[in-house]
């Protein structure tokens, strides 16, 4: 667990684990960004990673783990390659995605009256907008979400 140092831009694969609750997300994000430090990414790339991962973790906690009363954990794996950027896999042991697949990207409909403006549904939209690849698989009793993020290229 934790991250080892490497010579940039090569980053050894890393894996961290966080408790599956809302309050743990900030620490989890900070830990992942620390692992990525050796890459010396731009502020914009760093923010892109933080945003995609935050939305992913929030979704896991809000949906996959919403019914679980037992303590749960979320695993975040990452690996960097200079050709494709950062690949992250987020693994949880909660409920499967509805219909067995990740929700597709839907552009929020803003052409409505103020009263009807959406207050949610932006999460998946942003994940799809910022990641070059989003792949979901149910593996046994766990969810694996693979994210390819084109950063540090």
């Amino acid at each position: 667990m934790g991250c080892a140092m490497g010579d940039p831009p090569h980053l050894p694969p890393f894996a961290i684990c966080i408790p599956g609750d809302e309050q743990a997300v900030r620490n989890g994000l900070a830990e992942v960004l620390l692992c990525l430090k050796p890459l010396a990414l731009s502020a914009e790339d760093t923010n892109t990673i933080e945003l995609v991962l935050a939305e992913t973790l929030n979704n896991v906690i809000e949906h996959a783990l919403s019914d679980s009363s037992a303590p749960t954990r979320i695993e975040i794996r990452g690996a960097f390659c200079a050709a494709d950027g950062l690949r992250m896999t987020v693994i949880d042991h909660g409920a499967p995605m509805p219909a067995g697949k990740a929700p597709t990207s839907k552009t929020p409909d803003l052409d409505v009256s103020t009263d009807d403006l959406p207050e949610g549904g932006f999460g998946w939209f942003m994940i799809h907008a910022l990641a070059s690849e989003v792949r979901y698989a149910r593996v046994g009793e766990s969810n694996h979400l693979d994210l390819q993020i084109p950063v540090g290229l």
Partner: protein
Amino acid sequence: MELTSSKEDALQIIAIQEQRIDAAVALAFKDRMRALTEEGEGTVLLDLNHVTFIDSSGLGAIVAAMKNLAPERRLVLAGLTPPVDKVFRLTRMDTVFGVFPTVEAALADLHG
């Protein structure tokens, strides 16, 4: 969730004194906004210049605050840092709010 409120002529300026508006504080933000704007009138200017990270929950909370103020009061935004600006532009929410680069620019514009 620390928000500070001040008055500038007909405007109420609410400054977010936090670096992150995310899922962990979205609810507290909505509650604080509601409490601070319960009394009073006129446009509310939300100063975001301390905020360096916002996620979709934070964005949703700001939309909720705007809906809560409407139709009597308008919510406009100022001081968006690059990460906040990115989220508003990606979701096209920048087209729904009045967005000003700085509080000063907003004051100059809104006072005509």
